[in-house]
């Protein structure tokens, strides 16, 4: 008899709860990568996550570390409060583009400027998922959303915000990378970046941010497969992948 050989298990960093994410949503992949990295680095038991307001508001039900829920956009400030009183713990935020790049841009910029030793996981799906598909600060020109029904017109609504490029300019930022979740090769690179961002914090090097290009098939009005293709065709030209900063 051949013994069963498990090749793919639930990381101990993920709870057994079913997620509420839509089919094809890449929030789930980002959760899994985060949980794997926390487990592999051996820091799950001393990590505190800060969930934001967006579709990932219930991240605390899925990632099996201590967690607090922050107000919309304020996760980096909450993380600052936590890190300043618990300097030997690992603190990370998990934020969407509406949360981080719109209402919370001030908090994330200043956390980076201060060099807060925290890790920010930034899910850029170019849309406000939770509130039903409104234009985000990261929506590419021409993108149709419920609040840009004829397509985002930069003359009226401005241009997408490139967060990594912005944060990399802050002297307090030590690690800044943009990765994507649209194919397995990129997912592996995304995991490496997350690992680097947590190691950056473990080594006390300063602020770390990883932007992950993500899908929202539901509000983009696409199949999961088309959504992955849309990331490649429409998001990559606006949001180039790469490591923007890696201060030793």
């Amino acid at each position, binding site marked *: 008899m051949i013994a069963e050989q498990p090749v793919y298990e639930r990381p101990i960093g993920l709870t057994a709860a079913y997620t509420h994410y839509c089919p094809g949503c890449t929030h789930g992949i980002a959760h899994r990568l985060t949980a794997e990295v926390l487990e592999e680095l051996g820091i*799950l*038991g*001393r*990590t*505190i996550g*800060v*969930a934001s307001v967006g579709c990932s*508001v219930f991240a*605390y*039900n899925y990632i*099996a*570390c*201590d*967690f*607090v*829920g*922050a*107000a919309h956009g*304020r996760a980096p*400030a*909450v*993380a*600052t*409060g*936590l*890190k*300043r*009183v*618990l300097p030997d*713990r*690992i603190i990370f935020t998990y934020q969407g583009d509406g949360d981080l790049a719109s209402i919370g841009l*001030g*908090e994330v910029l*200043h956390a980076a400027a*201060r060099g807060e030793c925290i890790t920010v996981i930034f899910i850029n799906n170019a849309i406000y998922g939770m509130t039903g598909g409104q234009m985000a600060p990261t929506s590419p020109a021409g993108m149709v959303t419920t609040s840009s029904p004829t397509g985002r017109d930069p003359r009226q609504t401005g241009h997408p915000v490139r967060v990594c490029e912005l944060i990399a300019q802050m002297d307090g930022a030590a690690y800044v990378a943009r990765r994507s979740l649209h194919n397995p090769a990129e997912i592996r690179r995304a995991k490496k970046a997350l690992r680097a961002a947590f190691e950056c914090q473990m080594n006390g090097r300063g602020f770390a941010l990883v932007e992950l290009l993500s899908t929202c098939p539901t509000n983009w009005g696409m199949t999961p497969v088309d959504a992955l293709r849309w990331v490649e065709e429409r998001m990559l030209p606006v949001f180039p992948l790469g490591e923007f900063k890696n201060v030793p």
Partner: protein
Amino acid sequence: MARELLKGNEAIAEAAIRAGLDAYFGYPITPQTELLEYLARRMPELGRAFVQAESEVAAINMVYGAACAGKRAMTSSSGPGISLMQEGLSYIAGAELPAVVVDVMRGGPGLGNIAASQSDYFQVTRSAGHGDFRPLTLAPATIQEAIDLTGLAFDLAERYRMLVILLIDGNLGQMMEPAELPPFRQHTSPTPEWAVSGAEGRPHRIITSLYLQPEALERHNLKLQKKLAVIAEREQRFAGLYLEDADLIVVAFGSAARVAQNAVEAARAQGMAVGLFRPITLSPFPMRALERLAPRARAFLVVEMNAGQMVEDVRLAVAGRAPVRFYGRLGGVEMLPDEVLQAIEQAMRDTRVTKNGARMLDAEVQR
């Protein structure tokens, strides 16, 4: 400890340190800034956390974060900054976190001015943010009392896992007077069983104010209301002067109560039966004591440095059993004992007891 000449804002800051403040987060605004400046120097000296935040929005969320870890956290501000903090205050209330906020009131609305005022009474006592909650609110009238209540604020915050607001005005923040600081408290803060610290060796903990199911949120709200009821039962505080035989009871808090006290003393010297009732907790409002006084007094005169805010709580307590008159100054104008004395004299002249025993002020009789 010896008595020293202390500035209000700095005395509160030092009292917080001695009460075991672990972390302070703030943003400059007059007339509160000395608090931030004092702690900018003292907290790092003691190896404790201090951050000048990028805004009051950030400051209160940093307080939220530090409080989630079960640490003693505080911020301070004035009207415009407290307005910006309201979302965060509501999250603190919803997540049942202990935290202390100092509001050094200035004139409003809008940018208003930097003169002392009591115009945030409604803002702070009514809820201080969205949703159903009330913070515990303490209103000292002297620097000594501000020191003592700062220590109490941390105790109450932790006992009830509750937001506590220390409400003073710019006068008290800026003035100096002799007072005695308490000794340093033993600074041990073991992580409370609800706080986050890393889930090593135990199930992971979650701190949130999100309850998606209406029934669950109703249960949570009922729990919060029950806690408020317990607090209302146990924590009402006030101070009284000449209340036993007072025909007219002046009600005032904070700086206004000091001015009112001068006026009451002057009225007594003239032989008028006037007393002073000074709420120390504004929320819970000292209802019980006022309710007891309502049938005995001929009238009440509420004196505030605003357009009439606490007067509504006094009317609720008195519940029509005696007339309640209001005297106030607005916009940060300093109120003087003489004008309060005039208001007292006027109220005494106007006070009538009708044939059926109802007590009225003349203006009301005519109406």
